[in-house]
């Protein structure tokens, strides 16, 4: 009997069953793919870290005898360090590393060269550790190759002093230490011969030493380190390296949310489908009950169909998740060492089974009405004997200004709100799912974002290829002189602008106890005018002994605006007054900013981190940038957003990609839901359509009735969805930007895109889908009004 009923039902409600099947399959695909990929990436990161033999703490120092000596002595004597190693690096600026005459891309303005790591921090190619590189060969990270258009076998030219090496790209490597766009350091691996040839020609400032320190307990190691006197270029804990792959994980987090939303839509549709089926079969249910078939058996009869659909749908989803996961993981294979982490079949099966079980539970609950109805109530079509049921809220007699079609549409909605729940849920969740990542993407591409990268709001960022000359003794004086000369030269070209430089120091900061000092990045603007302090509370620092501090850093230190902290800058340890707090996304939101009045300190190790320019004529920014590009072909000029993208990778592109995928998915799911609902309501309204036809309503009017009804529901749902999205914006910001250090960045909403484009797209899709679905009402016989319930 089960099979007979199933066959009959599958044939009778083809559209409904197909839509349900597709939704369940989609839910299972997304659930299985995203959950398994999350786990896969997590496992892969663990595996990658383990295989790379990473250390617990890293220090990068310029090769100055006193600093190197201090660290070497500490490594030799410390009980906290269980293993310590060092490796020399040669830093060459971009113009010294070229391919076919073009500079090779790096995200920090320079590329560091070293030899094959032997004791740890390994690199890999074709999932095997690179153990040897022959003279004339070079290994580059995927990121560098991708951005520079380099392929295996290409030749790059590296110049150091008077030595020039032609090197063939032999390996595209996976590098957990410096392979992510998120870390401002790139490395290339050379043979010992080539490295020595280049390093021997290097200037002292170009050589760095990377110290990799392992420990069983981080606290004593940090305490001992803080007691030392040295100036590091960069230092960080090894555990931070996982978070440099944050964007890879956030994509899958978003897809898990998509899967949950799809399941929610599937459940609402399921509820609708079950109610509709049971209502249609009231008489049969009544008769079955009347002859003594138990409620559980009847429920089983109805549940059986959905069990079959759920099992087939989840099976399809499981199968689809295999290639889908592969597609999603594809790009990660270029940067991560996956090991056997991809073989998470079991987890996918668990996810698919979870979808089936959820649906079964829902179906069982949904068929509750079968149990509740008495036999006679079922035979009466579900009526309990209660005669009076007030329906519509509006009346035609008093609605003299709206058309009958609109009246019928509105009246239908108010008379049966539950009928439209599935469409409402699909659209509310759909528009929310589209708008939130769209807002995140728009925030990422907004001009204001540069403030959160300590750039202020410049028109242009310029690399004049002389950054390396601004480091060390006399560097800041050279910088000031260069900026003046550049302003004059540009003015002669007809481009008037003011320049500034964001300079970064590695400083130590503590409140009372120097052994608890934290190493953080401090920003220093060379000139008055730019504060670069986003979401400033309090005031910007004006005097030489004033600073502003990021809110996250203040929380870590337990200080507030008005407090004083000790800052060790070079050899100077002095107290600074915190005048304001701000947010930024450099170094995951931890840092401080000096006043422009801070006297230049050549002893403190600092680096230029971006020369910014603001045009006097701000109405013709792109044209002036182009003019400068033509006049100074050796310079690199970016807009602020381009500069950020070049520094941290194309997060905007990643989120936009996810958003576009969600948009397509939401649009498709909405079409399915609309078609299902339209067809179902059309079947339910068949008698009424026939009656209206017999009364003289033309087909066009009846189509308008059906379309208007859905369009009104869609408009209301979209408005609710947009309100929900607006309410969730702060949470979205915290999720997307909070981890990077700016939980309170104001979300940028493009009104046309958010409030017009996406709602219009979904509304248009809804209207077209309803229109096409209800065209079949033209075939409803005028005499078929006996189908009125």
């Amino acid at each position, binding site marked *: 009997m089960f099979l007979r009923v199933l066959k009959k039902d599958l044939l009778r409600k083809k559209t409904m069953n197909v839509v349900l099947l597709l939704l369940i399959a989609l839910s299972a695909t997304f659930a299985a793919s995203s959950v398994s990929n999350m786990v896969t990436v997590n496992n892969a990161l663990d595996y990658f870290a383990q295989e790379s033999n990473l250390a617990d703490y890293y220090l990068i120092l310029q090769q100055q005898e006193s600093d190197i000596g201090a660290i070497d002595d500490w490594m030799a004597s410390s009980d906290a360090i269980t293993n310590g190693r060092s490796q020399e690096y040669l830093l060459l600026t971009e113009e010294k590393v070229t391919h076919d005459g073009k500079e090779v891309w790096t995200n920090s303005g320079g590329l560091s060269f070293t030899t094959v790591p032997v004791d740890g921090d390994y690199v890999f190619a074709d999932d095997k550790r690179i153990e040897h590189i022959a003279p004339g060969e070079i290994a580059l990270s995927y990121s560098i190759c991708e951005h520079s258009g380099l392929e295996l076998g290409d030749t790059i030219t590296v110049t150091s002093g008077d030595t020039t090496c032609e090197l063939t790209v032999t390996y595209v490597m996976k590098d957990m230490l410096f392979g992510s766009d998120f870390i401002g350091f790139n490395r290339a691996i050379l043979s010992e011969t080539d490295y020595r040839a280049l390093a021997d020609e290097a200037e002292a400032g170009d050589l760095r030493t990377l110290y990799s320190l392992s420990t069983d307990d981080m606290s004593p190691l940090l305490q001992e380190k803080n007691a030392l006197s040295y100036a590091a270029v960069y230092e960080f804990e090894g555990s931070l390296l996982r978070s440099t792959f944050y964007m890879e994980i956030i994509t899958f987090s978003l897809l898990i949310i998509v899967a949950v939303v799809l399941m929610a839509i599937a459940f609402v549709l399921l509820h609708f489908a079950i109610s509709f089926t049971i209502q249609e079969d009231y008489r049969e249910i009544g008769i079955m009950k009347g002859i003594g078939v138990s409620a559980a058996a009847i429920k089983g009869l109805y549940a059986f169909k959905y069990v079959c659909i759920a099992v087939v749908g989840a099976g399809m989803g499981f199968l689809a998740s295999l290639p889908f996961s592969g597609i999603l993981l594809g790009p990660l294979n270029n940067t991560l060492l996956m090991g056997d982490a991809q073989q998470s079949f079991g987890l996918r099966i668990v996810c698919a089974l979870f979808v089936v079980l959820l649906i079964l539970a829902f179906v069982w609950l949904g068929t509750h009405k079968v149990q509740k109805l008495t036999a006679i109530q079922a035979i009466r079509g579900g009526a309990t004997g209660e005669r009076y049921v007030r329906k*519509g809220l509006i009346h035609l007699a008093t609605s003299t200004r709206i058309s009958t079609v609109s009246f019928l549409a509105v009246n239908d909605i108010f008379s049966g709100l539950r009928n439209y729940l599935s469409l409402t849920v699909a659209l509310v969740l759909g528009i929310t799912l589209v708008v939130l990542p769209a807002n995140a993407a728009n925030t990422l591409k907004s001009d204001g974002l540069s403030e959160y990268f300590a750039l202020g709001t410049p028109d242009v960022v310029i690399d004049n290829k002389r950054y390396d000359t601004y480091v060390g003794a006399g560097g800041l004086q050279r910088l000031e002189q260069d900026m003046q000369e550049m302003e004059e030269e540009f003015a002669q070209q007809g481009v008037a602008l003011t320049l500034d430089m964001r300079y970064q120091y590695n400083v130590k900061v503590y409140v009372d106890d120097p052994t608890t000092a934290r190493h953080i990045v401090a920003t220093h603007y060379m000139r008055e005018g730019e504060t670069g302090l986003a979401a400033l509370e309090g005031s910007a620092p004006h005097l030489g002994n004033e600073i502003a501090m990021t809110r996250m850093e203040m929380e870590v230190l337990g200080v507030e605006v008005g407090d004083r902290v000790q800052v060790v800058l070079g050899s100077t340890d002095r107290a600074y007054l915190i005048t304001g707090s701000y947010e930024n996304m450099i170094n995951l939101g931890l840092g401080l900013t000096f006043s422009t009045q801070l006297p230049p300190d050549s002893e403190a190790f600092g680096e230029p981190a971006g020369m910014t320019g603001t045009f006097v004529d701000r109405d013709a920014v792109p044209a002036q940038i182009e003019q400068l590009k033509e006049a100074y072909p050796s310079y690199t000029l970016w807009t602020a957003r381009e500069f950020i993208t070049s520094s941290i990778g194309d997060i905007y592109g990643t989120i936009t990609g996810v958003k576009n995928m969600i948009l397509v998915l939401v649009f498709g799911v909405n079409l399915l839901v609309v078609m299902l609902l339209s067809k179902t309501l059309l079947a339910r309204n068949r008698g009424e359509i026939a009656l209206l036809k017999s009364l003289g309503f033309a087909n066009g009017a009846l189509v308008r009735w059906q379309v208007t009804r859905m369009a009104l529901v869609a408009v209301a749902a979209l408005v609710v969805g947009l309100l929900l999205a607006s309410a969730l914006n702060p949470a979205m910001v915290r999720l997307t930007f909070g981890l990077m250090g700016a939980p309170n960045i104001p979300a940028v909403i493009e009104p046309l895109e958010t409030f017009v484009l996406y709602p219009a797209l979904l509304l248009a899709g809804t209207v077209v889908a309803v229109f096409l679905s209800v065209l079949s009402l033209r075939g409803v016989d005028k005499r078929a009004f006996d189908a009125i319930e």
Partner: protein
Amino acid sequence: MTAALEAKNVCKTYVVNKRQNNVLRNVSFDVEDGELVAVMGPSGSGKTTLLYAVSGMDEVTSGSVGFYGQELTQVRAKEMATLRLDSMGFIFQQMYMLKNLTIADNILLPAFQSKKNRGTAKRREKSAYAHELMYRMGIAELARNDITEVSGGQLQRACICRSLINDPQMVFADEPTGSLNKQASNEVMDQIVTLNRAGTTVMLVTHDIRVAAKCDRVLYLIDGSINGDLALGKHEGDHTLKDRERRLNNWLLDKGW
């Protein structure tokens, strides 16, 4: 008198499983303007099919149907809808109404849909007219009631109001008293006679001799053909009704009823 309806050689054939079923065979008859005509015949004789065929509710297989001089078989679907809305009224055996609307709204629906009644003033006029009709039919107090709150007779009277709301030239009724009890049936038929007396042409299908006896003329249909046409004349009051019923009964017996 002008002809309200002129049916000539109307045929209606259904093809089911490649089997041809001739439901109407060369049916020809006229209905004069202001006439009240009943169609009778045994079950399956094609009464309802004939009613739907000549009212434009269904297409004829061949033949012609003139409605106040307009050839219905040549009218396009959209114009036919307008014609049904503005010039024809329909009363069905079951009291079909839209379940989400009140009685008054169901009655007003065709009025407000008609292009003749665009504008607030016209609509207000129609609302008043709907109340007048309901008052005449004795259901004025049910205007705001839901359709599940009233009796079958009351609902059928509401259906009559709906059929009259656009002042149709002709009303077609398919067994309008078929699902009513005797008292309700009498009340409804009295309303139809009153309506006819006011000038509306009516063609109705019935099995009930008491209903048909109140009509001016009775057509007898058998096997899809008109087998008899009895002119009873205008029903002048209940005192002649018994005689009319007896006369009709005898005629029907002669026809094999």
